[in-house]
């Protein structure tokens, strides 16, 4: 029952938000209550997992002939946790952020529905269930992208929609092909598909396109920098922090639970992903450097960082996979922090270009300090989280004899520095060009989530018992077919 509750409580909560037309304050509390409840239920999954090991729940009567199934293993639980935690923080932030705009009910409703769909995607036990929630997530997040409703947002939303549908179709082709070949679509530990037929390759490429689209993989990233700047900042934080990871998650499932990863390595298909990942890292960073718009730069940075994650799984080494899962955590934390702070800046000043924010750090020191911490973590400076993921990814690359990938990681760190540090330097040390005398740090509701996220960027590198790292290790071990729970 637990997966059902986790998925449908937010979805029903979202529908209720629209249906009941509650008064503003009560609605906010209601939304918060639903999100907190979901988070608590998600934490229960751990006890579930610890007591019973991997659980596959099947409901063949629902939606025949495939049925619906859920799979609770380390990968899904870990990602569900990060998704719902980020969601909670962003929701707290969004109450004050969204206040000045229209259609607040719609915003909150679709945020909740998207939460439910996202969690559903993560908990899905087979490809069809995954596909269902994946599409639901894509469509409901479309409403978040076009929230502002201005022509720009509509255009970006349109692009997002088209590409998502295209990606979805490619994914669907993959699902059908897998079903055609094996007669099953359920995720299996260690994978079940080892056919090297053309259809199999087509399915793999379909998955690559479908999930790569979502993950912002290089040739398919174009929707991402269009959609992020126009979406409200909390939505950008969710898009970048959580929903991009769904693409990565889907690919992890495909590589480890549909195909046998050894097989992918032998036939060399994984190299397509490897090349795409390296291109994503380098070109994402290069595009980011060229951007003048703050959120667009952050969006391209997301592209580059997703490249790290794709690289981590394409290397197929356990150490790289630890770094990979850890980077999913880390990037979710730091990128949502960055987007939330940039949202604060944009909301308070009405400016969007990086050069407009000169000297703003003196006016809102706490927010910008958080931004700085997240930026340093992005660059991968110890003792921030980003360093740890870079460390594991780099060692993993060397482990499978891919020094080039390790060098790409280092070069990309430099490029990260080139586009993040000027923002920080501008904000703290340059003279103000616009009058920011009225501006100060925002209300606690908007500040606390940011501070929590910023502390998290350093916290999970220096605490004695590093929960996130341990989880990443367990997950990686589980995917590689060892360790507890599988």
């Amino acid at each position: 029952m637990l997966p059902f509750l986790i998925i449908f409580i937010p979805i029903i909560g979202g529908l209720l938000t629209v249906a009941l037309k509650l008064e503003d304050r009560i609605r906010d509390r209601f939304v918060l209550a639903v999100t907190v409840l979901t988070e608590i239920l998600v934490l229960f999954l751990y006890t579930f997992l610890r007591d019973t090991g991997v659980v596959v729940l099947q409901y063949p009567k629902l939606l025949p002939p495939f049925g619906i199934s859920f799979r609770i293993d380390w990968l899904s639980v870990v990602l569900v946790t990060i998704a719902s935690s980020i969601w909670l923080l962003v929701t707290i932030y969004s109450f004050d952020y969204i206040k000045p705009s229209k259609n607040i009910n719609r915003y909150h409703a679709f945020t909740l529905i998207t939460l439910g769909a996202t969690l559903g995607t993560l908990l899905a036990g087979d490809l069809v269930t995954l596909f269902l929630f994946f599409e639901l997530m894509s469509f409901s997040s479309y409403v978040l992208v076009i929230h502002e409703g201005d022509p720009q947002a509509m255009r970006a939303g349109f692009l997002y929609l088209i590409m998502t549908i295209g990606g979805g179709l490619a994914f669907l082709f993959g699902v059908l092909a897998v079903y055609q070949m094996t007669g099953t679509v359920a995720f299996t530990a260690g994978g079940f598909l080892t056919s090297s037929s053309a259809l199999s390759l087509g399915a793999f490429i379909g998955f690559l396109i479908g999930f790569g689209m979502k993950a912002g993989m290089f040739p398919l990233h174009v929707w991402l920098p269009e959609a992020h700047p126009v979406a409200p900042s909390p939505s950008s934080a969710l898009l970048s922090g959580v929903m991009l990871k769904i693409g990565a998650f889907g690919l992890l499932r495909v590589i480890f639970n549909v195909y046998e990863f050894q097989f992918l390595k032998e036939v060399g298909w994984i190299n397509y992903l490897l090349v795409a990942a390296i291109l994503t890292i380098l070109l994402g960073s290069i595009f980011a450097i060229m951007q003048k718009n703050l959120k667009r730069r952050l969006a391209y940075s997301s592209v580059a960082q997703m490249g790290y994650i794709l690289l981590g799984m394409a290397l197929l080494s356990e150490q790289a996979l630890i770094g990979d899962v850890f980077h999913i955590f880390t990037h979710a934390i730091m990128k949502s922090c960055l987007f939330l702070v940039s949202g604060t800046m944009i909301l308070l000043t009405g400016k969007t270009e990086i050069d407009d924010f000169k000297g703003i750090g003196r006016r809102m020191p706490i927010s910008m300090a958080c931004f700085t911490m997240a930026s340093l973590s992005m660059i991968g400076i110890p003792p921030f989280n980003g360093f740890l993921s870079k460390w594991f990814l780099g060692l993993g690359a060397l482990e499978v004899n891919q020094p080039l990938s390790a060098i790409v990681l280092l070069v990309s760190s430099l490029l990260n520095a080139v586009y993040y540090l000027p923002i920080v330097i501008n904000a703290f040390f340059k003279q103000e060009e616009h009058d920011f005398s009225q501006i100060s740090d925002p209300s606690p509701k908007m500040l606390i989530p940011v501070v929590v996220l910023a502390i998290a960027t350093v916290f999970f590198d220096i605490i004695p018992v590093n929960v996130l790292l341990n989880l990443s290790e367990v997950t990686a071990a589980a995917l590689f077919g060892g360790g507890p729970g599988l």
Partner: protein
Amino acid sequence: MVTQSSIIPLLVVALPLLGAGVVAYSARWGSAVRAGVANLLTFGTVLLTVWQFLLVQSGRVLVYTLDWYVGFGLYWRVDFLSAVFAVIVALVWLLSTLFAVEYMAHEHQQTRFFVASIFTLGSTLGVFLAGDLLSLFLFFELMTFAAYLLVIHEENADALRAGNVYLFMSVIGGLFLLGSIFFIQHTVGNTAYAPVLEQLVAAGLNPWWLFVVVLLGFGVKAGMLPLHIWLPKAHPVAPAPASALLSALMIKTGAYGFLRFFYVLFTVAPDSRLFFLQEAFGYAFIWIGAITMLGGALMALIHTPMKRILAYSSISQMGYILFSLGVGVMLGPDGAWGLAGAWMHMINHAFFKSFLFLLAGAVYLQTGELDLTKLGGLKRHMPVALGFFLVAAGGITGVPGFNGYVSKILIHEGILHAFELKGWSSLLWLERVFVFTGGLTAAYISKIWIKTFFGKPKQDWSQVQDLSAGQRGIFGVYTFILLGIGLAAQTRVNQLTLPALGITEFNPLDLEHLGQVPFWSLHELQGPLLSYGIAGATLLFQALFGRYFTVPRWLSVEFLVYQPLYRGARGFFNLLGAWGLGIQATFARLNTLRKAKQKPKRTRTWSGTWSLANWLTNRTNLLFDTVVIVIVLLAVVVLIFVR
């Protein structure tokens, strides 16, 4: 050697790192309390380092591990080398912080300065006390970023530009270091200070690439030519107490890194077939050191802002250190002289260079001027400052009785020793470069004090007062240290240098000779005389003909290498950007042409006018991405098929 687990190294690092927060908090009770807290913390750190030194001196190696520090753990390992330098770092930091209280009184953002300074102290100590490369890297990066706040303190355009150069070069250096750490961790499984070269080569790594990577990793911080360009920009723009710390201590982390790498990590047994590598690395270092020392000294000679001269002087002095390090590395077990000279010079330079920078700060505090062409005639107004300046000058130029003399003798003997053993005539030429640079050093230092204190006053100095009592106290301590090392040369060598040589195996005969260096022999005493002779000739030459010799701008590395690189990168991105704009303009033009023909239609909001041109105009970025995508994909396809 007894290894003992002790928490003191952790405390030494943690006290200032955490103390930075206390300083920030204490600022609310006023500047006096803040300054008091900052000084108290630094003093506490001095006491801890001294305690640690005493423990280490009794023959122990202190280690401490925080193995829960995710995945790999943080290690401290304090041997004699680390312990000595920790004391020096803390001591110089204390003197400079004491000086800063008065110097910074009229500056803005004082709290930030003190917080950053104390934090940098902690991270710098961390670099010297770290027990493996990864821990070293952590503190190295912390130091880089904390010191950035010191560099850009003034927040004017110059400072920000210098800060950018500093920051990005340091980040690049850090990444090279991280790269080398990756390879070591991957091959060896840990990054402890132990010989790894044979394993690395056995794993199929090219040792020359490794050498270059390590060179770039620490060379930026060490101000090695041609990676030095950040240094003469960043050190002069920082406030004087910060410049003192940057120049005297922070750049030593680079030398220290080289020391650990080339005396521990990259050493092989002399009978190994890889010994030729160590020899080659050492020989390369000697050349790098010689170029750095000569280049730095020449640049110092032609500049007139006092702090910039001192910054170039730091480069030159780092050249001495690298030079001597190279001698030691090249000779392997016979290289005791080389290491002793480098080590002693690291210590001495820390003292006399911070002394000089603080004196420059004291002059600036009174006159508001640092350019030598605008100073002059201060001797009547600041006689005490002149006296202290002469002491510092004695230190850096190696006048017998002052500390610089000690290390210069060791370095000089080291290179002669190398020549004796190897018999390569190039080594003799390098020795001449060393002597000549000594002369140039004396020349530029003399230029500073002559042009500042003597000659005709170029401005009205009637408001200028001599050093305050506090400054006299600080400079008195410096004088005491400089003379204390210089006058008791042999004792200090025995105390500070001989135990430090324990990091690797050396020929006992050399160690014995080091125990009885003929510091006061007539032969050695000729060195400083020669230096001053060259200095006099140089200054005379410069005074007579200097105006005919202007160094052209195109001769600098910055102009030759870095600016083209930077422009190339900028140009690349601009080109990409212009390309995007051009595409946008083309489509905008198409669009207007098209629109001019038709009547404007009512547009729906959700998709705009649905025409390709219009669509693309509004999506220049998208289009641009698409074009790049097509090109890259084509390239990939071509690459695949060409194979």
